[in-house]
């Protein structure tokens, strides 16, 4: 019995230096996660600021519309599909590093969620903070930088942490790039993406209705 376990261990990890697959995998996972997180924060931060600025001041309308489109598409389709589209469709005809593709795909994906997390943080800050900053003579950007964002980020830290754990685990789907090469990429993937998108849109519409009803009952 013990002998059997030992043999299996040897076969799986020691023989042919197979443990290297594990450590290599771990290394790749960490690299992908780290850079995807950085990319996600950068994108999320920008998108959140654009969205809140538009909500507050009515400026940046066009950028805001683009951000909304980005959020809808990214949040409305599964990350696997996004990954496959980026690898097989967008970069289908060029030879490109898979790790780079993974970072790009997960970064773009995470950015959408981070954006909404940070935006909720910004909205959670009392408008009086904003007014106090402006009344001292700070302009919009300074008020955001010195007063609103430091508080907002503190408030959303747990949610951000959560998002990054999810991201870490999500990177496991990067394995698909390697295995699915035999498939015809374009048609099925787009079809899958569209089906998901429609489902998610319908669901968020329902959620919106529910939210509005809850808000009305607060008055």
């Amino acid at each position, binding site marked *: 019995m013990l002998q059997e376990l030992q043999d299996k261990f040897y076969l799986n990890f020691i023989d042919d230096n197979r443990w290297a697959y594990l450590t290599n995998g771990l290394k790749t996972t960490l690299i992908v996660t780290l850079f995807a997180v950085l990319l996600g924060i950068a994108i999320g931060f920008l998108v959140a600021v654009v969205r809140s600025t538009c909500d507050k001041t009515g400026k940046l309308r066009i950028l805001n519309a683009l951000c909304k489109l980005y959020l809808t598409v990214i949040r409305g389709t599964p990350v696997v599909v996004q990954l496959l589209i980026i690898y097989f469709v967008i970069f289908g005809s060029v030879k490109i590093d898979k790790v780079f593709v993974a970072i790009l795909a997960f970064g773009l994906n995470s950015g959408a969620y981070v954006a909404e997390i940070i935006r909720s943080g910004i909205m959670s800050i*009392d408008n*009086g*903070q904003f*007014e*106090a*900053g*402006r*009344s*001292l*003579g*700070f*302009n919009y950007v*300074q008020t955001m930088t*010195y*007063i609103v964002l*430091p*508080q907002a980020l*503190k408030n959303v830290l747990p949610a951000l942490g959560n998002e990054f754990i999810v991201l870490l685990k999500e990177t496991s789907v990067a394995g698909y790039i390697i295995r699915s090469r035999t498939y015809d990429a374009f048609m099925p993937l787009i079809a899958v993406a569209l089906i998901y998108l429609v489902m998610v849109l319908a669901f968020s519409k329902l959620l919106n209705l529910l939210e509005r009803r809850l808000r009305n009952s607060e008055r």
Partner: protein
Amino acid sequence: MNGKESLIRVEDLKKEFVGVHALNGVSVEIKRGEVVFVVGPSGSGKSTFLRCLNRLEDPTGGHIYFDGVDLMDGKININKHRQKMGMVFQHFNLFPHMTVLKNMTIAPMKLQGTGKEEAEQEAMKLLERVGLADRANAYPSQLSGGQKQRVAIVRALCMKPEVMLFDEPTSALDPEMVGEVLQVMGELAKENMTMVVVTHEMGFAREVAHRVLFMADGQILEEAPPQEFFGNPKNERLKAFLSKVI
């Protein structure tokens, strides 16, 4: 106050929220060193009027001349002028992530290029004057309401403003803390700071104001020195209002 130069001149100021006229053509002149109180029933537009003075609320019409510059002119940089108009809010609005000292020094350091040391010295001087020097390194959450409001006042003073705007500064305070804040405001008035104060503290207005304005329905219905304002009100609405609040 005759003979002193005008600091703020408001002409026909209008503010319309969706479907509601919050300000219905307000004209008033405030001289340098003058202490003007604005009273009136809730919803009369007095807070809106005050918040329009530094364009925290954007007026929909009229002119605000501050130190000779029309703040309604689209070409001016409002941030520059706001530095000269200190504002104190009902809910203090201290920055909770900064110490008292940082609350007070951040604006002079970032906006006026004051050095850290100089800004902190100035802030400590002001804190001493309001009896809070020992709280310099505390965070706002560790202060009582009255202490918070005193810090808010000196935070605004750190920018060396030409005028101080007070938006119901004691309305959110427990009764036993009102006095300490009014005392600080009274001292400011004695030092010839120009002040515009929206308040419900009638006794304080009678004591400190040079002039009292009565607002209702987005208009100034009466303005007079406090003795006359409280002793011999002419407007019927003001008479009714005073009989309710005094």
